[in-house]
């Protein structure tokens, strides 16, 4: 069953003023439970606006949002409970930490859910473990930690709510290659372990190619494509035209294909490119 479904979703800024602008237009989407979806799109394509509809932070100008089959705006006063079902981690989440200790900050979400002290404790420790935080970190003030560690605390704070869907907006922004690999590795492990749904917004098609099964491509407030990774790379040229950076390896394979060699222009991993080239050479 689709865990997230939207029906003719529209969000328009400044309705009725001179600044009226459509941020997302006519979105009809169905995301299945258990998927790992990468979301890409140029700046201003509507991706950030769209994900804020999934946890009810934004209310559609028109259209509907269904989480697990329920229309989330049917009872507007109860919208908060959907924020626990769909956890959203914003960009640079380390800037939202505020508690005295790491433990308390991670506990903020579960506490707001109204859980018992024991339940909160269980979730906090579980989430901390998921992101690689140790016991010695838990009693420290979050402001004493390094940038990368702070980010982990923030992500753990959302994971601790045990959401059915976890959405992360550019979780690797500002990190170096090592930091990036660590965080994405942790998210992947989290996804495999919990079998829940993960949405990852990213500018890096390389990252998405490595970790996601499906890709949602946003372009100018509309959905351009929502399909498997392979299918999306079949449109590599169009994606490049949208101003998105196609992975180097894909560009190399497209160029070799244009030169007449039998290499798939939808290749998106180095390993696959290598195999194809070796195969062509082996046929000598």
């Amino acid at each position, binding site marked *: 069953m689709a865990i997230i479904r939207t029906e003719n979703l529209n969000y328009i800024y400044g309705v009725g003023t001179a600044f009226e602008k459509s941020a997302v237009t006519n979105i009809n989407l169905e995301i299945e439970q258990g998927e790992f979806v990468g979301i890409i799109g140029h700046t201003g394509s509507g991706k950030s606006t769209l994900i804020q509809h999934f946890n009810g932070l934004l209310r559609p100008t028109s259209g509907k949002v269904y989480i697990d089959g329920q229309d989330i705006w049917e009872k507007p006063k109860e919208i908060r409970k959907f924020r626990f079902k769909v956890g959203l981690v914003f960009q640079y989440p380390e800037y939202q930490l505020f508690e005295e200790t790491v433990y308390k900050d991670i506990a903020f979400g579960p506490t707001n859910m109204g859980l018992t002290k024991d339940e909160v404790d269980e979730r906090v420790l579980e989430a901390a473990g998921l992101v690689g935080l140790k016991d010695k970190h838990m009693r420290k003030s979050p402001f004493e930690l390094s940038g990368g560690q702070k980010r982990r605390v923030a992500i753990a704070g959302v994971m601790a709510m045990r959401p059915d869907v976890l959405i992360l907006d550019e979780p690797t922004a500002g990190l170096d290659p090592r930091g990036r690999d660590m965080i994405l590795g942790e998210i992947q492990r989290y996804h495999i372990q919990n079998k829940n749904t993960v949405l990852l917004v990213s500018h890096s098609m390389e990252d998405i190619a490595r970790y996601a099964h499906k890709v949602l491509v946003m372009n100018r407030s509309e959905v351009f494509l929502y399909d498997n990774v392979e299918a999306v790379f079949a449109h590599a040229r169009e994606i490049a035209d949208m101003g*998105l950076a196609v992975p180097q390896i894909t560009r190399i394979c497209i*160029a070799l294909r244009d030169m007449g060699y039998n290499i798939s222009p939808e290749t998106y991993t180095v390993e696959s490119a290598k195999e194809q080239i070796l195969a062509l050479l082996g046929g000598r």
Partner: protein
Amino acid sequence: MENIFECQSITFSYNIADQDKVLPVPILEDLSLAVRPGEFVAVLGHNGSGKSTLAKHLNAILLPQGGVVYVNGIDTREEERLLEIRSHVGMVFQNPDNQIVATVVEEDVAFALENLGVPPAEIRRRVDDALRSVGMYEHRLRAPHQLSGGQKQRVAIAGIIAMRPDCIVLDEPTAMLDPRGRQEVIGTVQELNREFGITVVLITHFMDEAARCGRVVVMDNGKIILDASPREVFSQVELLKSVGLDVPQATELVHRLRQAGIELPGDIIEVEQCVTAIGRLLKGS
């Protein structure tokens, strides 16, 4: 001609308070580096390698605890010449917002010149020139919060250029930008180096940015472990990976093919080079 920068065996540590003790954590160890006028140098390293600390020694934000740093022949410890050093070496930081002081773009670009007591008419001229060379002249009357990240960084660069410095040091200037912003900033800086001969030191962890420089210095654990052209540096794939860095996918592909016994040049870092080399290979088969 004199070196713009000369770091001679510099050491530096931060004091970290850990419970009751104060421990010195060494950041730079016996590091020496010389940069010649007109160079476009990338300093590459993972977070914690000491690259930002090194950058801060280049305009006397930090002073070395051991060794000396000379900027245009001036010892950075000479307090009376601090302004002179800083007017010759400009610095651009990571956060685009936290460098802009004024409420209007052109006023911000004028800031450094106003501090230096430059006459008003001359300020006006230099501000206009600086804005034009970074492509922000049409936005000169806008407010900073209306600009994109890439535009803000270009305004910051303009503010430095207006001082007509010999060198610009950029400390991870694109870390907080989207791909388009990154492109704008690196393109601008590259052009400033090419057209005006301004020395550029770019601190970064992005391989594709380092690939565009003339010289790449790789740091790890407070030491320089590689200092050569991009081609020479990127051919050392295993070494780079061992210090937490990445290589461009083009380089990675060639590396893996070479490991499988295929003969290919070991210094490929860009898509075109890669395509040409592999194309040649496949043609021969």
